[in-house]
């Protein structure tokens, strides 16, 4: 029995990675929920918008690196992030102008717009692959590890090491700051409140003098900030791979729906629920259990419920279960 070592293994292999992944999903789900609440459709292009934002940020990072700019221990990508957000915002506003505005003015049914976003997704998908390719891109520089497992072992005298990667720490900090900013914006500022009003009742917002075009534009800018941030954090933490973002669409939607579509708080909680479920179900618990039980009980197998190849099955199962038994999600979102 060695509870401390078990705890360290749990923190190192389950808790920290899941919290990081959960933050990335939460930022992604916030964007999905935002478009759903205000523009009233599920934006299937969301994952590829993340890829696009991350791609622009990577180019900006390379540019800064070529100029010799660096943030010391922090990754240069943080400095390039505002550039990525700005370019993505311009791109999304242009997409809205060319594609979505047409359907909005025709008062098209939202289901039509959702299908249109599928088309936007394919185009974005192609653009990203055309520019940066399909290979791994590693753009993390600066300090890799804030705490290395070896240092931790030496400091604590335990058998197991606990590591905290720079990308993980940054993800958690940036996610918390983004969420606080977003909630402050929605509940305290005039523009934020006007967006909630528009989401609540478009006609009444118009009667109050709220300009719908402005609300839509601000929505896209916020979505650009959320997607690019989520995409860059995911890319820093893992690696950048064009198609991975497309696959992230499933856990992101699962997160938004579990929390309750249209509820920002729900998106955050949903993100962590999906991430923790995925990691817990696909983690091989052998080591943790071996530390916790008497030696003779030590398991032979890996104690892994599903292999990581099936991690998407986890979010998919949660999605199906929630839609059947609790369709409005935890925070009573707007889905029925």
């Amino acid at each position, binding site marked *: 029995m060695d509870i401390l070592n078990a705890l360290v293994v749990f923190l190192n292999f389950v808790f920290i990675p899941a919290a990081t992944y959960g933050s990335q999903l939460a930022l992604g789900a916030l964007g999905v929920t935002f478009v*759903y*609440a205000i523009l*009233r*459709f*599920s934006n299937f292009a969301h994952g590829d918008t993340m890829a696009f934002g991350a791609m622009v940020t990577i180019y900006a990072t390379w540019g800064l690196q070529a100029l010799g700019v660096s943030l010391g221990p922090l990754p240069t990508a943080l400095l390039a992030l505002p550039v990525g957000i700005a370019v993505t915002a311009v791109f999304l506003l242009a997409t809205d102008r060319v594609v979505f505005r047409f*359907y909005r003015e*025709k*008062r*098209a*049914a*939202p*289901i*039509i*717009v*959702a299908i249109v976003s599928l088309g936007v997704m394919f185009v974005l998908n192609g653009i990203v692959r055309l520019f940066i390719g399909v290979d791994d891109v590693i753009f993390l520089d600066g300090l890799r590890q804030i705490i290395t497992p070896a240092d931790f072992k030496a400091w604590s005298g335990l058998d197991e090491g606990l590591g905290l990667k720079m990308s993980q720490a940054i993800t958690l900090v940036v996610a918390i700051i983004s969420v606080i900013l977003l909630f402050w914006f929605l509940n305290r500022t*005039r523009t934020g*409140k*006007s967006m*909630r*009003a528009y*989401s*609540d*009742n*478009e*006609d*009444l*917002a*118009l*009667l*109050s*003098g*709220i*300009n*719908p*075009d402005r609300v839509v534009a601000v929505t896209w800018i916020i979505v650009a900030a959320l997607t690019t941030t989520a995409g860059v954090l995911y890319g820093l933490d893992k690696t950048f791979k064009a198609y991975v973002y497309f696959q992230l669409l499933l856990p992101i939607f699962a997160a938004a*729906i579990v929390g309750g*579509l*249209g509820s920002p708080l729900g998106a955050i909680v949903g993100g962590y629920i999906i991430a923790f479920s995925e990691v817990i179900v696909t983690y091989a618990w052998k080591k943790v259990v071996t530390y916790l039980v008497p030696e003779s009980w030590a398991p032979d197998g890996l104690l892994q419920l599903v292999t990581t190849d099936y991690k998407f099955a986890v979010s998919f199962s949660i999605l199906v279960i929630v*839609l059947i038994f609790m*369709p409005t999600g935890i925070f009573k979102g*707007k*889905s*029925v």
Partner: protein
Amino acid sequence: MSEEENLKALRNTRGNKDASITRTEGMSTAEPVRPGGHAFPAPGGPFLAGEGMTGGYGRGADILHDCTIAVEKGQIAVIVGPNGAGKSTAMKAIFGMLPLRKGRVQLDGEDITGLAPPDRVARGMAFVPQVNNVFTSMTVQENLEMGAFLRRDDFSGTMEQVFDLFPILREKRQQPAGELSGGQRQQVAVGRALMTEPKVLLLDEPTAGVSPIVMDELFDRIIEVARAGITILMVEQNARQALEIADIGYVLVQGANAHTGTGKELLSDPVVRRSFLGG
């Protein structure tokens, strides 16, 4: 496909009721006058008037046929008529929630036919729709703040005035408007419209669905608002009660003017009494 068929296809949801993909709740149903239009001077004439209004929704048939509604400054005008007479439509047309095919709208010496609703709000018009007239997910105070959206000055004084007019709202200011009773919601709706300090207040059946006691109370408040110098144009189902407080009344039938006169004249007109006031 013709453009008509195209539009039909775009709006067809083909039985899709899955709200996990789209959200139709709170979606706009109006096709208001598009932004970008201009007002131009049109001196003379009444303070607020829709003159010779003809129009309908979308590409549908005309609902209004050469309908004229006018009200002088500080007066109360009431539109009454049977169901489907186009009363609400006339009011929406005056506010620009419905583009006119013929006719014009005039406010305070200006022709505002081409202005979008937010621009009309900026010129001193306020509109209280019959249904869905509060932001249900927002608090009472936030509802009032949204009413004052176009104001850049300090509007806390106006909010106090609204709270004085409807004291119950002061108590419930932090409560979501969706949790209030029907009568209280109507008060929030009227309060929201008053927040811009409008010159003209358009009320679409303000007493629909509230109890008789609340209805009397609402009428009293409306008279109080009119005494403060705000011009009022109101559509009412409770024709008798509304005409009693009206300076001028319009009876619409099938989208056209049928009878016009002061409230008293209409109340004593045997034809109007027989056809619309139940004897």
